């Protein structure tokens, strides 16, 4: 028999979760403020650039040598309109790093995240505040997750409440870890917003007091299998956001290229569609490997628990579907005419399946996995 339950710890945990959600909310506001403010600043920069440009004759400084069909358009660094054309959405071949870099470098001043999504020199005060608040939030959140684990005397992912609270923590933590090396702050509203939703949903709809695990879950495979699943899902969350932005950005680039008005000013903060696609591909590749392990470890566990490693239980079906969709995504990236927008759609569909697998399948579908603690 496992540890004794400690209800006081459980109550502390709930308090921490609430505090974390509150801190995230303030961080969310800061991130949103950053988007609004930067968008305004960028517009001003643009206006100025446009004026200078009109004064001087429009002389291309040097034509880029397009190797991968990507870098056709790179003229003066301030020429925002053209620069966003780098990397048409439906391009046939994949660029190497330098082609991608060019796409970003060419976008000129004011682009907060370049194609490599490295930090630019200029400071964005609201964004810094937002990140600091998110760090504070994640620390409180960590305390919540740890006290929950101590209260229950086991890993804190044994029911829906715990999947959500721990999952939200991992999503934010992964986001912050990526932030160390890459400027993905434009995803801040999305990631933090999602974490808030998850925490609120956990507390309102799925609240469960600390408790023991049913015997079916008492296995070290719970630790291995679920932790990798949660981690992969957190990565899929990032790529989902990036793919969604990629679609918007691609649309905007097309509109702007065709001479239309740029109605989505805040998207200036976001890197070009091609850079988004390339980075989300790399994250998706890691997450896909993680998901492959999730699937395999799940099968091994199923063999231990139920005597068969695969039985097309609803949860197994959806895990398989997700795996196949992302395998399709990887294939799409290698198929002519399927990169860009279509690949982004596949990445989005894959993530919707992840959400479906987590919410609807856990709650409404009957299967061997129906012990999600409801």
């Amino acid at each position, binding site marked *: *028999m*496992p540890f004794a*339950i400690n*209800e006081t710890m459980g109550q502390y945990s709930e308090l921490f979760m609430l505090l974390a959600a509150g801190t995230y909310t303030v961080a969310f506001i800061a991130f949103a403020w950053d988007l609004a403010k930067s968008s305004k600043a960028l517009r001003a920069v643009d206006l100025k650039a446009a004026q200078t440009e009109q004064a001087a004759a429009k002389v291309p*400084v040097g034509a*880029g*040598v397009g*190797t991968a069909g990507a*870098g056709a358009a*790179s003229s003066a660094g301030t020429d925002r309109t053209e620069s966003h054309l780098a990397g048409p959405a439906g391009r046939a071949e994949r660029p*190497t*790093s*330098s*082609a*991608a*870099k*060019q796409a970003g*470098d060419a976008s000129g001043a004011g682009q907060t995240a370049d194609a490599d999504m*490295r930090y630019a020199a200029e400071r964005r005060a609201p964004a810094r505040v937002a990140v600091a608040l998110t760090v504070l939030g994640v620390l409180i959140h960590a305390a919540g997750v740890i006290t929950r684990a101590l209260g229950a005397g086991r890993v804190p992912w044994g029911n829906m409440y715990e999947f959500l609270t721990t999952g939200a923590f991992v999503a934010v933590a992964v986001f912050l870890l*990526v932030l160390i090396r*890459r400027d993905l702050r434009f995803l801040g509203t999305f990631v933090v917003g999602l974490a808030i939703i998850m925490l609120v949903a956990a507390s309102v709809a799925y609240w469960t*007091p600390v*408790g*023991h*695990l*049913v*015997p*079916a879950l*008492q296995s070290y*495979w719970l630790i291995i299998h679920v932790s990798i699943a949660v981690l992969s899902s957190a990565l899929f969350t990032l790529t989902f956001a990036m793919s969604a932005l990629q679609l918007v950005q691609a649309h905007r680039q097309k509109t702007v290229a065709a001479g239309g008005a740029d109605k989505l000013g805040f998207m200036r903060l976001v890197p070009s569609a091609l850079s988004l696609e*390339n980075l989300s591909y*790399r*994250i998706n*590749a*890691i997450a*896909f*490997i993680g998901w*492959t*392990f999730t699937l*395999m470890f799940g099968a*091994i566990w199923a063999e231990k*628990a*139920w*005597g*068969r490693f*695969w*039985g*097309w239980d609803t949860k197994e*079906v*959806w895990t*398989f*579907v997700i795996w*196949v969709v992302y*395998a399709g995504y990887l*294939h799409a990236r290698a*198929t*002519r*005419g*399927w990169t860009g927008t279509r690949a982004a759609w596949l990445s989005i569909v894959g993530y919707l399946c992840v959400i479906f697998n987590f919410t609807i399948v856990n709650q409404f*579908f009957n299967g061997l996995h129906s012990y999600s603690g409801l």
Partner: protein
Amino acid sequence: MSERVKSNKLSPAPVAAAKAEAALPVLGPVGMLRWAWTQLTSMRTALFLLLLLAVAAVPGSLFPQRPANPSIVTQYIKDNPDYGKLLDTLQLYDVYSSAWFSAIYILLFISLIGCVVPRAIAHYKAMRSQPPRTPKRLSRLPEYGTMVVPADAGLPASDAIRSAAGLLRKRGYRVEVRDDDGARPSLGAERGFLKEVGNLVFHTSLIGVLVSVAAGGLFGYSGQRILVEGDTFVNTLVGYDQFTPGTNFQSSQLQPYSIQLDKFAVTFDRESRGKFGQPIDFTANVTTKENPDAPAKQEVLKVNDPVTLGGTSIYLTGNGYAPVVTVRDGAGNVAMQGPVVGKLQGENYYSSVVIKVPDAKPDQLGFAGFFLPTAFKTEEGVSFSGDPELINPQLTLNSFYGDLGLDDGAPQNVFELDVKDLTPLNARNLDAGGITLAPGMSYTLPDGKGTISFDGVKRYVGVDIHHNPGQLYALIFALLAVGGLIISLYVNRRRVWVRTGAHEDGRTMVEYGLLARGEDHRLAAEAAAIRKLLADEWQIPESGSGDDAESSAGIQQTPSRQDDNGADSVSTPAGPTGPKKDQ
């Protein structure tokens, strides 16, 4: 596959393939077949089939599935008379063995084989051939740079190319030097063949997984058995309550081991709110024998912790209470004695029991009712079980006499009593009333039909017994697949060309270019690393910043693009997501 290679302009074969494809309509039947094959093994088809497979798997989670639970399917068809039957004809209750699902994955795997085999052959050839010839204009490559070795260094063009070749070899490249003695010697180098190998291993292993699963289905078997404390199961066909053989199963496969349930203990949650009374631990103590005359062994069987015996695994999958009863017939003889397995019906081990006594004389007797470990009654008189533990065990029964219908040999469900041909003796609505027994009590049936006594309660467990010979192979192939996948995603296939030439003033001019096959976000870093190696080797002062480099004495970098400055290409874009380099 052809699609992918087609986009690679360095490989000549796919061009021919593309031409063949273009010239198709006049090719006749053989041409048609070839065309179909090309289509089937194309990347686009693979993608389409993959997505189709994902979609086709979904209905299996929406509708009840026969292999998992046949009775629910029957009920579902009954409950939905309008479309239940239609779904059945569409095989929506057997999705994963349906014709359409099978068609999709078989096509996918044919496509896979058609994809992997030619690719493997092509790759084998590529691995044995020399790196491709040096392109005329290196500056067109995605990574390009030039260097100048000063005249006083005394490094002729041919020596420079040889020293570059040495460096690249050390870096894991396969190198070929061309025109060694000419005016403009060059080298071609390539590395990362493992990438393709990984890809091939991955895809081939998927076939391996599929075959292993199929083999498991052919040669495996599974069965169920209920064991009351004290019972022994012997692994023979008659020992099973239920048995599902694979297509190629032979009963000689069964090794006659035995397993006896000595004791079964359950721990219930007495701590948490909300989950009070939920089981949190099941432990079965068993005695096993590999063979009838092998030494006995004590083992523990738990959920998530099967016992392996005689090539099978034994899983703890269910449990419950088995009240022990003794039934005497009208003549006073013991007609039946022993535990009766209660079938779980509701909360807290609320179980149904059926007792059939075919040996009772003069009439056969039958009992049906409920067992409650902790009996409670609501104010409306509805009985329920208040706790899973044996606090106030109670057996409530109705009794019948007549012909149980067991003598004609037709199989019957032991958990159901067919009362059609029976006469009720005890029931709540009869004068005699129902039978309510606590342990130790007995009851005399009306009309001198006999007596029934409730002697005590035992626990029972349900075990699943599985033998799956394909399982181990499936695991091995799955591991191979992930290994291949990781290699294929994180090894980069790269080509490098270097060309040197002597300037009139005695300087040696060097230009180099890099090309990646497939996705490679670290090609720029590789270019920078190679540049640095060369600079160190030739002792050309190389400074960190591109602008400085431009003006510094010996070096000139002419990147392929105006914005590709040295500073950027020197800093290695190794993100947190950045994979390990293949060195």
